[in-house]
């Protein structure tokens, strides 16, 4: 593996670079700490592996009096989301977290949260869906809520998960849409990472107290969730869709503001060694860091490979994506969920559809890898790059392939 250069940084330089103290924390605990820093009013959650530590630790903070929030220990995930909807409609800042079957159990109300424009923030510790029952990581849970009207991010590591908590409250409350932050179950939730937190002062500045223009308030009554007869439903959906698409700008602005405060740059699509790349993989979540190692090794051999990571999944950053692919000749999309009977994995379908809206016509191959915690190693990524290379000169014979299956 390629050695990283380590450079000593003086204290003055560190200050200038705005480098802050890092603390070693389990990512779940770090997420809970960031949520507490955002001074949420209501936390409503039901435990499910591998998400449990997040809400467990939050309940501890509330119990110890370190966090002044209402903690509602509900009887199910459906109730968890419903309680968040109620609290949010009344003007409270809310938080919940879930995973896999838990997310599916709250499915019905997810759409209500977004259509009622409630700025709920939820962390999803991504885990595969039963059957067969599995607690390990892939993206099949969140892909079911792809069309739910939630803003959806994928974090690559613990630091990003923490930063995305700050971003999400700001973005949710400015756009009036709920936000889901996806973190890979176990791979992120259960590892200890050095994490740097924003100073409380900065958090207060970046995520100011929630003010809802319309909320359930007996002094100023409004109706939320009224019937949408055929004469109004289409207009309601159009309004929601327009607002959802324009949340993109709010997301970008929130990241610009974050950069001003911290020097850290966040973008919808992260690129790695894409400048002159001929072949690229598209990926989401924590596997990216493994894929980067594969890129480094292949680059050492003179292969022009690069990586595109989607941090923002919904709204899909169409323009950024088309710009980011540069002049690649072939793209390998690495999906982590199966869309049975479709023309590809969820990301593969999206990428093909996105490119049809541009003049760029790279070859596209779609792999489904890393289901239910199956390791995708550096060697695997090298293999995926090679197969993508192969696609440049050949006609792809498949619309997608489940990678690494024992025949």
């Amino acid at each position: 593996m390629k050695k990283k250069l380590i450079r000593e940084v003086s204290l003055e330089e560190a200050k200038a670079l705005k480098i802050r103290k890092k603390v070693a924390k389990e990512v779940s605990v770090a997420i809970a700490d960031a949520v507490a820093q955002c001074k949420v009013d209501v936390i409503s959650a039901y435990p499910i592996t591998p998400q449990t530590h997040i809400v467990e630790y939050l309940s501890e903070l509330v119990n110890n009096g370190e966090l002044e929030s209402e903690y509602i220990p509900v009887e199910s995930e459906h109730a968890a989301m419903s309680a968040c909807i109620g609290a949010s409609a009344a003007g409270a800042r809310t938080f919940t977290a879930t995973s896999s079957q838990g997310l599916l159990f709250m499915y019905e109300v997810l759409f209500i949260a977004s259509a009622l424009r409630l700025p709920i923030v939820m962390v999803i510790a991504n885990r595969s869906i039963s059957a067969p029952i599995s607690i390990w990581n892939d993206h099949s849970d969140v892909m079911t809520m792809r069309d739910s009207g939630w803003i959806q991010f994928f974090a690559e590591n613990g630091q990003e998960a923490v930063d995305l908590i700050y971003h999400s409250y700001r973005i949710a409350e400015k756009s009036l849409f709920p936000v889901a932050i996806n973190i890979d179950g176990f791979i992120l939730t259960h590892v200890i990472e050095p994490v740097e937190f924003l100073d409380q002062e900065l958090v207060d500045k970046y995520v100011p107290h929630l003010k809802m223009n319309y909320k359930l308030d007996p002094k100023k009554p409004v109706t939320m969730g009224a019937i949408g007869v055929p004469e109004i439903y289409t207009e309601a959906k159009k309004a929601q869709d327009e607002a959802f698409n324009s949340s993109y700008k709010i997301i970008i602005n929130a990241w610009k503001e974050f950069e001003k405060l911290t020097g850290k740059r966040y973008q919808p699509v992260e690129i790695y060694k894409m400048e002159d790349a001929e072949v690229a993989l598209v990926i989401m979540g924590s596997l990216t860091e493994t894929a980067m190692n594969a890129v480094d090794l292949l680059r050492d051999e003179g292969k022009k490979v690069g990586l595109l990571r989607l941090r923002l999944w919904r709204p899909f950053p169409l323009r950024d994506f088309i710009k980011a692919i540069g002049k690649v000749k072939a793209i390998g999309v690495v999906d982590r969920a199966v869309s049975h009977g479709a023309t590809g994995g969820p990301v593969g379908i999206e990428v093909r559809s996105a490119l049809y809206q541009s003049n760029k016509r790279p070859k596209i191959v779609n792999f489904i890898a890393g289901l239910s915690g199956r390791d995708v190693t550096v060697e695997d990524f090298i293999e995926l790059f090679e197969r993508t290379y192969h696609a440049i000169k050949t006609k792809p014979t498949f619309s997608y392939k489940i990678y690494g299956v024992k025949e």
Partner: protein
Amino acid sequence: MPKEEGLISWKKLAPGMAILKPGNSVEFKTGDWRAFRPILDKEKCIKCGLCYVFCPDLCYEKDEEGYYISNLYYCKGCGICAQNCPRGAITMVLEEEI
């Protein structure tokens, strides 16, 4: 029936289609959903008020003589009143036949 058209521009809707004016559901005309109309036979009615109690839309109002009369602006024609009338005083009649 005419094809439905939009009632209001999507640009004019409050976020989440919240309704900002309280108590305006009285304006909501549910009467044009009706296929059957409840017709009261005053000869049979004993003014017990069960129709008033059972109507899911609270359509019934008492007139000066004490009869319960369905407000057709709201009546959806569900027939619950007719089902529950102990005297069979309400008949559901197809709108076209009236």
